[in-house]
Structure formats: C-alpha cells, structure tokens
C-alpha cells in the first residue's frame, strides 16, 4: 500500500503548492484542505494491513479470529478525529475569508499585508 502513502504525500505537496502560490484566499483554504486530506490518507494507510477487513465483528469476523482478520482500528479512530478537526479549521478559515471579503472586497492575500515589521 505504499502507493496510497505516496499519494498522500503528493496531495500534501499539491496542497502546499496551492497555499504558497495561489493569491486567492479561497484557493489557499482549499490548498490547506488538500494537505489535510493527504495527511488523512497517510493516516489511514498506516493503519491498513493488506488483505484484512474493517475492524467490525460480523459473521466473518468472529471474536475468536478478529485479531487475525482486521486492520488496525486505531488509525481509523484517529482519522475520524482528524477529519472533524480539519473540518472545523476549514470552516473557520472560510468564515474569515467571507468576513475579509465583506470588509475589503478583495480576495487576494497580497491586499492584506499592511501589518508588518
């Protein structure tokens, strides 16, 4: 599953590229989201064990053989939290962008740099 790992990092870099080069605030936020997604993908990959199934007991996965049959439940649990947190941050970022736009009617990050030095 190394491919998904690498894919995760590719997403990371794409997001970073967006954050660093796009001037539009929305696009920067989207870039951040992409990074987040990449990291989530990485987390899930870390928990994946090839050929195994979701850690939920059912007919196939019985209490007796569960340990051999399931993937690591921890990263799944973690990614759940991470996603929610990512969502929260994104929501706030977007709200900021909305407010900024309301105030100055500009979405370019270059227009918000009178604070410096």
């Amino acid at each position: 599953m190394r491919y998904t790992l690498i894919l995760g990092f590719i997403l990371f870099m794409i997001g970073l590229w967006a954050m660093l080069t796009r001037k539009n605030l929305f696009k920067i936020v989207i870039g951040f989201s992409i990074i987040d997604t990449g990291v989530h993908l990485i987390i899930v990959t870390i928990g994946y064990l090839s050929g195994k199934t979701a850690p939920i007991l059912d007919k196939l996965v019985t209490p007796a053989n569960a340990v051999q049959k399931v993937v690591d439940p921890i990263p799944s649990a973690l990614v759940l939290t991470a996603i929610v947190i990512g969502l929260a941050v994104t929501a706030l970022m977007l709200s900021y962008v909305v407010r900024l736009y309301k105030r100055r009617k500009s979405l370019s990050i270059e227009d918000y740099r009178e604070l410096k030095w």
Partner: protein
Amino acid sequence: MVNPIMIFILFLGTAFLFALFDKIHRKFSFAILQLVLLINTFIAGQWLYKFVFTSQTPVMIFTAGFKPPFSINLRMGLEEAFILFAVNFVGLLSALYLSKSFKHSKVYPLVLYLMMIMGVNGIVMTRDLFNLFVFLEISSISTYALIALKENEQRLASGFKYMIASGLASVFFLLGTIFIYHITGTLNIDQIITHKSFVITSLGFLSVFTLMMSLIIELKPFPANGWALDVYQTTTSGVVSIIAVANSAGVFYAFYKLLPLIPHNQLLFIAGIGIVSFLFSNLIAIKQTDSRRLLGYSSIAQIGLLITVTALTRYLHVKSSTSLFIISSIFLSNFIAKAGLFWIAGIIKKTHIKEWAILRFKPGLLIIFGVFIFALVGIPPFPNFWAKWDLIRFLALSKLHIWIILILLGSLLEAFYLFRWFGSIVRSEQNEEQLLQPAYKTVPIIIFFLLLIIISIGIPIHIYQFDILPLLPIVGLLILSIFDFLPSKLKAIISMIIIAGYTLYIYPVLSGVSLVFAFIFLAGSFIQLIATMSRKGTDKGFFPLLVGMILSMGSLLVARSSLEFFFAWELMTITAYMLVLRGRKAEKPALLFILFSLAGAYLLLSGLSYAHVINFSLVGLGTIPISAHMLPITAFILIVVAFLIKVGAVGFHIWLPGSYAEAEDDTTSFMSSILSKTGIFGMLILLLFLLKMNMHHSALFTSMLGWIGIFTVFFGSLMAIFQEDVKYLLAYSSMGQLGYIVLCMAAMSHLGWVSGLYLAVNHLFFKAMILLAVAGVISRVGTRNMYEMGGLIKKMPYSFISVLIGIIALSGVPPLSGFGAKWLIYTALLEKGWYFRAGLSFFASAIAFLYLFRLIHTIFLGQPKPQHQNVKEASPFFLIPQFLFIFAIMAISMFPNLIIKPLSTFINPYFASTIQWQGNTLYSSLGYWNGNLVMYVTMGVFMLLLIWLIISIGRVQKVKQFNIVFAAERPFKPTTTHFAHNFYAHYKRALGTFVRPVTTGFWNGVGEWISSAAGSIRQIYSGNGQTYVLYILLYFIVLYFIMGGK
C-alpha cells in the same frame, strides 16, 4: 483532593449548556464562566499547594476504565499544577478584564474563551500524543475565533495568517504522531519516551523532528513567526494577554513534555533555536514603535529563552528541582509581566510607544508598569533575577561560554528597549489626557502586581534562605513608600533615622576596610540627607528610592555570599537608575546609565559564576580558606570590568557625565561622592582575593589596572576643563578622581591602599561639598551653564567658601587634606616604581587646576549678571552638610593621623606597613610629611600677612561692579566682560586631539550598527501570509539539514 478530570467536566458541562444559561441573562452566564474558572483555579491551586508544601507525589488519572496505553491518561504533578494554576488564574482575571466586551458581545466569545482555557488545561495534563493534538487544536481553534472578537480588518487579516501558519504546524504534528505510532505502536507519551531509541533511525528521527517542529513553530520562533506578531499587534488586549501567556504556556509545556524525545546530542540545536529567537526578537524590538508589537517581540523572545533554558538544563542534566526552578521563574516573570503589560495596553488604548506617556499622570499604574518591566528584565527581587543567577552559574560550570554571552546579550537588548520605553514615559513632555481606568480592568492588573511582589519576596526567603539582612533595602524602600505622602522634610528625617538604625544594626558585622566604606556609604549619606530637606512639597518617590539605594550600598558591605552581593549590587543599580531618571532631561542619560550598569551587572554575574567561590564578599572572604585557582583569569577580568564600568573608567565612561549631570542636583552629589565608590569597594574585594590566592600574572593585571586608572584620571580631568555646564565639569572631575583611587588600589601595596582609601574618604568630603554648593547655586540661578553665572560670591558667600575649600582640597594644594592624598599617591607610586604613571598623574593634577579655577571663577568671581541681582544665599539645608564636610576636611587636614592611622591599621592585615609615625610626621620609605606643621606654618604666615595688610591699608572703598581699569572706558555689559565661555580655548587648540569623542563615537557606532541591523532584519516580515508560510517551510528544511537529518 478533587480529581483533576473535574476541570474538564466543569469546563465542558458549562460550555455545552452555556447557550441556555445565556438565555436567562448575560450576567448569569458570565457569573457561571467566572465561577468555573475560579473553581478550576482553586482545584489547581489545591494540588499546587499539596505538591509544594506536602510530600504529595504526582498522580496519574485514568479514563474509560482501562489502563494506559489502552486509554488516555492524565498526569497531575508539580509542573502541571503550577501551570494549570497560573493559566486558570490568568483566565479568571482576563475574563474580568474582558467583562465589558463580553457583556456586549454575542454569546460565542464566552464559550470560546472557556474552551481556549480548557484546551490549555488539556494540553498540560494529557499524556497521550494524539490527545495532545486534540487539545492543541481546541485551544488554537478557539484562539483563531477569538482573534475576531471586536472584529476589524486588521484583526481578520492577522487571524487568517495565524490560521494558515498554525494549520500547517498542526498538519506536521499529525504527520509526526502517526509515524511515531507506526514505529512504536503506542500513543502514550511515557511509553514513547521509554522507547525513544527509535529516534536513531532516519524514519524515527524524521517523525520526532516533524512533531517537535510543529510545537516549535507554534512557539513562534524567529524568523518563522510573522503571523504571531500580527496577532499580538492587533488582537484586543484581554484576548491577547491570554494568547501571549496562557496559550504559549500550554504549547511550551507540550514542548517540555516531549523534549525527552530529542536525542541528547541534538538538544543544543533546540537550545540554538531558542537563543536565535531570543536574540533576534529582542534585536528587532529595538526598532519597534508599536507598543503591542513590541510586547509581542518581547514575548517571543522570552519564549525563546525558555526553550533555550529548557534544552540546556536537560543537556546539562541539571538537577530537576533546580532546572524546574529556573524554568518556572523565567516562565512566571514573563507570564505575569506580559499579561499585565498587555492589560495595561488595553487601558492606554494607544499604539505608539511614545503615546504611552499618559501613564505619567497615573502614578499607580506607572509604578505597576515599571515593576512589570523590571520583572521582565530580571531586576531583583523579581523571579527572573534568581533564574538568571542560577542559570548563568550552571552554564559557567559547564563551560558553555558562548551561551552565556548570547543570553546576556539578548537580555541587554531587551533591557535596552524596555528601559527606553519606561524612560520615555517617565520623562515625556506630553500633556495630561483623560484616561479611563475602569475597575474591571485595573483589578486584574493590581492582583497580578501583588502576586508578583509576593512571589518575589517569597523566593529569596524560601528558596535561598535569605534572612532579613539582605532584604533590608527593600524593607526600607517600602517603609518610605508608605510614608510617601508626608512632606519632604519629614521624610528626610525618617530616612536619616532609618539609615542611622541600619548602621547600628550592621555595625557589629563591620570591621577593617568595611568600616571605611560604611563611613562613606552610610555616614556620608546621612549627612547629605540634610540637603534633601530643601526639597519642596512631598516630592513623591524620591525618598523611597534614595533609602533603597543607600541601604543597598550598606548591603554590599555586609553581604555574606556572592548572591547577596550581586543582589545588593543590582538593587543599588536599579534604584540609582530611577533616581537619575527623575532629572528633567535625564531620559537619554538614564538609559545609558542603566544600560552600562546592566552590562556591568551581567559581567559581574558571569564573573561570579566563573569564580570557584560562592562567597565573593568582604564578609565571605574571611570565612573560607582561599586557594589558588579560585578566581580564574576569565572571572577576574569579567569582574574587574564590571567594577570599572561602575567607576566610569575611561572607555566605559560615556554613561557617567550625562547621568551625573542630568540627575537632580542633590542626587548627583550622592552619586558622585558615594555611589561611585561601590565600584571601588567591589574592586577592593576582588583585589583581596587576588592578593590571597597568588594568581598567575597578577602583577600584569594590576599593572594594566593601574594604567586604566591613570588614563581615567587624565582623560577625565582633560575633558572636565572644556565643559561649559558645571555639572558636566564635576562629573568628569569625579571620573578623574575615581581614576586616582583605581590607580592606588592597583598599586597593591600598603601605601597604595592607604592612599586609595584616604582619597575615597576625602573625595566624599570635597565632592559632596562642591556638588551641594553647586546644587544650591543652581537652585537659585536656574542655569547650569557657568558662563551664565558670575560674581556670585557676593550673593552666596557661604557657598563660595565651601567651593573654595572644596577645590583646594581637591587640587591637593597644601595645607588642606588634598595634599595628603597627593603625597600618599605619589609616594605610593614612586615606591612601587610606577614612574610614568606618577608623571602622568602630575600632569593630570595640574590639569585639575584648570577646571577647578574655571569652576570657582566663572561662577563666583568675575562679573555678576543683572538677572542675578536678587539672588539669595542657598538654602541652609544645602549649607549645613557642606559645613559639616568643611569641618571634616579641616580636621583631617590638621590631624592627618586621625584618618591615616586607622586606615593604615585596616590595611595592615593585607600588606606589611611601609609607613611610620613620629609625632605628627608621617614617614614613608621615600619622604615625610607633617600635615600638622604645614598647617600651622601656612596659617601662621597667612594670618600674619593678612593682619599686616589690614593694618597697613586701613579703610578701603568697596567699588561697584564696573569700576575697573578697562582701557579708560566702562565695559559695556557683564555678559561680554565676564570672561567665561570657552575659557580654555588655547588649551583646546593645543590638546584638543585628546578629547575628541573617540569613545562616544565608538559606542554610538555600536548603537547605530545594532539599530540598522535590527532595521534590516525586520524587513523579513513582509506582511504577506504566504511568505510567512514559506518561512515556516524554509525553517523546517534548514533546521532539518542543520540537525543532520538522515
């Protein structure tokens, strides 16, 4: 004991229900909020109490009914309790501070506020890596949102920058966490730390590096911190104080918790990150004019220092209790002071630091402001001082020289801009403005102020086992502060009583040379205090500081350990600084004074740290067996330079003239005649050590010292003659006289020391006399320019007499005591074989005539000015001490053995005596002197001639001012007839090259260079959020390669 998990339950329970509470009434919900914070403060406080005062061991709290690593656990130990208490407490106070904002806002900010504090609580307690991430996010996200409180465009822009930077940091954290989990198979921090050997693999290192970098970026290291500065600059005060202290505290603790993951050999890099941040933030802050941004830089610098100290103490395996003390003291100073300063910023509501001048009209707030600044700089007794003391000692023991230099350099930069700010407020000329001080805003500030004071007094007593003796200066200062409402005369009397009492109290401890200095410091002060009675009104603040300063000097004498000595030294410095700052135009000079004094203090600190002796003091000297290598050469040089700065030796003298001249007139007299001797006292102790331990090359050092002394004499005297301002003249004169003392002490012989001490005492007499007389004159004529005076002998004859006696004593003309000094000096120098130094000092003492004549002539003789027609004699309060000193001078002139004999006995234990007495004649190996006989002969001849003259000429007519032989005309006006301005033009033509301001130029250059460096470095903060992100990445990359990522 309350289960710490209750903190979360309380926070969350109320937060979730907050919307409902709010529906009842805002007052109700706000009360709930405060109640929650109060209870949590109490819970944390209770634990803190247990940890500090009982032998409570840290406890682990498990959740979910499982043991870790299966469940998340929390820890409550001393560190946690300490930070939680601080954070919840500041949360409580800040909530109070924000009460008005909260009253008119939506309900959300209150909820966010609660959650932010809870987030920090969680960060501190949790022992699970991912849980740590969650709590970090909780506090960050609520911070993001709170920045928008009282929204404006700048807040929004800075908040957005903050979010993208901090968002990136949290992504790194996540990345690090998951890979650490992958490697170790656990998320429990304690388990991870026990498995930390995984760090050596490249994957392991990268994971830990990514994780730590995330935290470090959240700690806002230079230069990856532009976003944080914007937030500090814009966010509303109540919120920013929480961000700056509580949030940082949380993140810092997370860093502290995870630091064991860093391999030992990488710790220095981490320390390097901190020190870079500390140095550069302080450097750039110099250029800062926006008060909030300035505080932001200072916060970042302090966090940098904390990082450094934490990493270094871990690197050095410092005992945990000690390292904890150092870290928590630095932490606490910044915590309290920064919160307080940001709160004050919210009251001032001005951005530019100069506009803070309105504080001047709020003495209470100004004092608090000053105390906070002192706490940041590390002035005793505030916690930072103790931390610095211990820290530098450890670094010195471990020979981490470069770190000492960097830390002290950064501290000096910080002191520079903070004191510059303080000075500009105190001395600004801005008019009074309306300043609202609502109670809800002032109460938190006052509480923190009191807290700081309590802690500051608690530390020396509890941790360093100080008894009352070294703390007496503070006690004295406080007593006088209580009586500050009384009129000056009364306060002067109280001060005199206190000083007399103090002298009696310490008298049993004094012996030998310390008696001499006790006489100078305490008796000298006592007499000069009479002069302060001339102050009008209540003159608030003067007496507490003065008494503080005098008692600190006394403390120097009776200090038993290096720490006590240094404590008294710093206390003296800061009180003196405040006194100087009281002068009307003293802003710049006072800044120079404190800068050089602090630089000196830091040198002293590092010198004492390098010394392998813990009682560098006169009392301590006797209690320990002295061995060689006690004072390594480095220590010796550092300490001696520290004292040379205090004395104002050439090269370090540029602080001296300004601060002596611009201080209030009676203060100048204290400073010049008394305070400057503390440097001599210190040097004496140092030389005693040197003497006892037979240091290698010690002859070379003392010889160098001798040259420094004589050049100080020479340049001091030479510069004095070109001054138009009487106080500048006297300041340079002091510099010269102190140079003589240094020269004598450096001679390291019986006669040398006798003459040094003799001169020290004598200088007290004549310099105090002259300065008080001049103070009296200035108080009447209202100018310090000598050429604007003239002919005052007729108006102020008594002042004239004391100046006359003073200059005769100073110049060394027989028969007065000054000749004794000269005789002793030359004899000592010639005995020692320092011929060239003796020659130069002849020259210098001849030069002294020039300025002395100019002094007396241009003020008292020559043509009186019309505007001084109605000038009266100076106040008797000025005259009484002068005449007491005249009496003293006359006494020791008539009976030199009165003073030389005891001095000689005091020196006897250290050097074999080379002088003998025969009656009143003093014999040295080279010559002899009978002061008594000289006096009689001179007086006899003089009186005879005088009587003869009076008899022979009978009645003479006293003529008016212009009745002189002036080319048969009457001179036009006194201003043109009074030959005073540029009196020694010809001398300047001949020797002007020597007084070119080389030193001043040098120091100015240093200042200029630092300032422009700061100016160009801060250009990196372009204001563009994307650039800041780029910096973070670059920072990440560069550090990765520096730390040798594999």
